């Protein structure tokens, strides 16, 4: 747009108030049929402008209406940014290829800047004659007459409305100026409405997003990290941010850790740790409300830890409040300075993080509730097995055994005795089941429990169905020095059974007597076949010998391998001490 050519001879300064054009008072607005038609035009323009709600649409309509009502070839509206230059420039009347040829939009120098510096109407007959003109860039069409008026919205100057080149080739009149001032008044109100509308629309979007997060969280069956990422994704989209992270204090050392991230360098930021002290996130957590830092470079701003990775210039931090203190914070950053975070951004993001925190709390409480009722249920099952099933099996077994003692037929007695054995095995299995039913996260991690977990893990890994029983006070008698041996024996024996002997049934028993530990593994596979699995078994033999014990391998009469690893509980004199 206009920028007077410095090469032309300078004319005496002419502000609109000293405009000397002869037409100045000849066509007051209230005069004649022409004035009436212009008034109708103005009213129509007001209607058109007011019927639009989106801000870009409003600005466009203002410019179009200004060009029409003002009878100018060119019209434009410059929006003044926080630094006093033109942040946006909406124009009309210039062909797209001419605009492209000029290359850049005006920044608010020259005459355009004069209306910014002094929010007063300026009316000129020849732009280039004005001493404030700074000339036109190459490719810019020549412009002669000029009219500029400030647009005020919510009590401050929002921008300026510019007209150039009256279509009749004349100079802009006082009537034009009055019409433009009236239009600028309407424009100011329309802009304010559009901003309010935009704000309430954004507020609604934030609310919808927090509703989605809550729904997602409470639907259950989702990974926490997915929900957290949904939170950062929403914030990034709604706050127009370049980077959003969710940070939490680590319980171990209190350092802040990035749990999820969205935006620039997101993948690299996850897992980033930094000292909590003086960080903006911890300041927000302590304060209990959001913090907005408009200029990260200013001296008083807190240190922003992800700056070496993402060159953010303005940031917000929002606390995630929890029942028992802050759970963490959401960090929001913008890299470019195109638009500053506004106080409303902070308010909305704060509201969002408040809702998200409540949803996280609720989800936590609910999963705890579910876990406790699952624990209680398992406990009840364990109790029933113990109180009813075992007792009945035991009682039945006792009576079968008593009967066996009175039977003279050896075949029948043998059968009854086998039944008693089976019942005993069943009781032992149930005992292991009862033990396994107790919560492994909270129960003391004893050797017995770790062995049980190991067998379950190996079963899953190797596709086995090995059962395990314990006899004797395993935990009371085995100290932790046995752990690595027990683990090695169980692992090797099960791996061997699965890889080399193709066993389908594996029975493992850990027996502790007053002075020996025996780990016995019986399977129904192909038994000892020679080579192949020697090295693993040799390792077990070495482990047994180190403790003064032995490894025994034999083929079972019914087929399959029988492995017995036996060591004394106390090292025998003259033996190598256990590792």
């Amino acid at each position, binding site marked *: 747009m206009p920028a007077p050519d410095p090469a032309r001879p300078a004319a005496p300064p002419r502000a609109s108030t000293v405009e000397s054009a002869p037409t100045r008072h000849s066509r007051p607005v209230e005069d004649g049929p022409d004035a009436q038609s212009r008034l109708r035009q103005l009213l129509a323009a007001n209607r058109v402008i007011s019927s639009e709600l989106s801000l870009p649409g409003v600005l466009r309509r203002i410019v179009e209406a200004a060009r029409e009502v003002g009878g100018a070839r060119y019209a434009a509206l410059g929006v003044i940014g926080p630094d006093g230059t033109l942040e946006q420039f909406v124009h009309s009347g210039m062909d797209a290829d001419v605009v492209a040829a000029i290359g850049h939009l005006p920044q608010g120098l020259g005459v355009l800047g004069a209306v910014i510096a002094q929010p007063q109407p300026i009316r000129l007959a020849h732009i280039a004659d004005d001493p404030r003109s700074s000339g036109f860039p190459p490719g810019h069409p020549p412009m002669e007459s000029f009219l500029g008026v400030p647009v005020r919205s919510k009590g401050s100057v929002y921008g300026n409305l510019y007209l150039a080149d009256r279509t009749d080739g004349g100079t802009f009149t006082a009537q034009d100026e009055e019409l433009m001032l009236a239009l600028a008044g309407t424009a100011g109100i329309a802009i304010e409405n559009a901003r309010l509308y935009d704000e309430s629309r954004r507020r609604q979007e934030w609310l919808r997003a927090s509703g989605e997060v809550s729904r997602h969280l409470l639907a259950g069956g989702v990974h926490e990290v997915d929900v957290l990422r949904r939170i950062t994704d929403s914030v990034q989209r709604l706050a127009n941010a370049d980077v959003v992270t969710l940070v939490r204090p680590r319980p171990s050392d209190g350092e802040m850790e990035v749990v999820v991230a969205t935006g620039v360098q997101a993948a690299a930021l996850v897992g980033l740790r930094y000292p909590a002290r003086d960080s903006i996130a911890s300041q927000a957590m302590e304060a209990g409300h959001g913090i907005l830092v408009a200029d990260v470079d200013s001296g008083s701003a807190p240190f922003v830890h992800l700056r070496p990775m993402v060159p953010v210039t303005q940031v917000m931090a929002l606390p995630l409040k929890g029942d028992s203190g802050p759970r963490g914070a959401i960090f929001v950053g913008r890299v470019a300075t195109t638009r500053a975070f506004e106080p409303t951004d902070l308010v909305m993001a704060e509201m969002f993080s408040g809702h998200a925190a409540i949803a996280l709390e609720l989800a936590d409480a609910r999963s705890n509730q579910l876990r406790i009722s699952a624990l*209680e249920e398992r406990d009840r099952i364990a109790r029933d097995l113990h109180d009813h099933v075992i007792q009945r099996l035991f009682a039945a*077994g006792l009576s079968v055994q008593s009967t066996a003692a009175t039977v003279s037929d050896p075949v029948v007695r043998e059968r009854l005795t086998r039944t008693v054995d089976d019942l*005993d095995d069943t009781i032992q299995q149930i005992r292991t089941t009862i033990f396994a039913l107790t919560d492994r996260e909270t129960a003391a991690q004893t050797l017995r429990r770790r062995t049980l977990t190991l067998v379950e893990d190996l079963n899953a890994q190797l596709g086995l169905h090995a059962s395990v029983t*314990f006899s*004797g006070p395993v935990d009371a008698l085995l100290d932790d020095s046995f752990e690595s041996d027990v683990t090695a024996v169980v692992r090797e024996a099960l791996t061997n059974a699965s890889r080399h002997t193709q066993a389908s049934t594996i029975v493992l028993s850990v027996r502790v007597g007053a002075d020996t530990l025996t780990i016995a593994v019986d399977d129904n596979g192909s038994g000892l076949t020679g080579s192949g699995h020697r090295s693993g078994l040799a390792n077990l033999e070495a482990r047994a010998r180190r403790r003064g014990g032995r490894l025994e391998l034999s083929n079972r009469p019914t087929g399959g391998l029988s492995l017995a690893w036996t060591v004394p509980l106390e090292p025998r004199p003259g033996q190598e001490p256990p590792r």
Partner: protein
Amino acid sequence: MSTIRVFLLDDHELVRRGLTDLLGSTDDLEVVGEAGTAAEALRRIPAAHPDVALLDARLPDGSGIDVCREIRSSHPEVRCLILTSYDDDEALFSAVMAGAAGYLLKQIRGSSLVDGIRQVAAGQSLLDPAVTHKLMDRLRHPVQEDPLVHSLTAREREILDLIAEGLTNRQIGERLFLAEKTVKNYVSNLLAKLGMQRRTQAAVFGSGLRRSAPPSE
């Protein structure tokens, strides 16, 4: 050879009947009385004056451990065996806490049950002192951070030590200048903290701990 008089305490009638059958099939064992609750047992055992009382650890109105400690204090001549369907570690703990001569798992096979009763009647203990010692060591110096064990007071630890020495409630009272009833209360607390309800308590306790801790994963 005089017969060994045996008293049975178990809340399952089927189990009592089975045990009576089993012990009746021997020449030297005789069931002289039985009970289904702790209260009945405390009334009937003194009257039946058995040599050995076989006590189920878990009862509807209390535990065989409490019954055992009461009987050991008032009738030290009665030898007690804890009969349990829990695993060995729990059974061992129960027997030590009860001041019993040993424990028997509810296991049918072989003659371990009958042999156990005979050994105890002959004045032997089924508990290996080394084993008892190791168990107490574990309780006093848990390797894992066990909040329940750490919750014991100094007095409770003191009493735990005396139980491990095999002292009855009365003897502990004399040693610490406490009324027998007070000792009994301490033992009940100890059992509640370390004993049978340990699993459920630990689960609920643990989840409570996790809830109040900051999120970590």
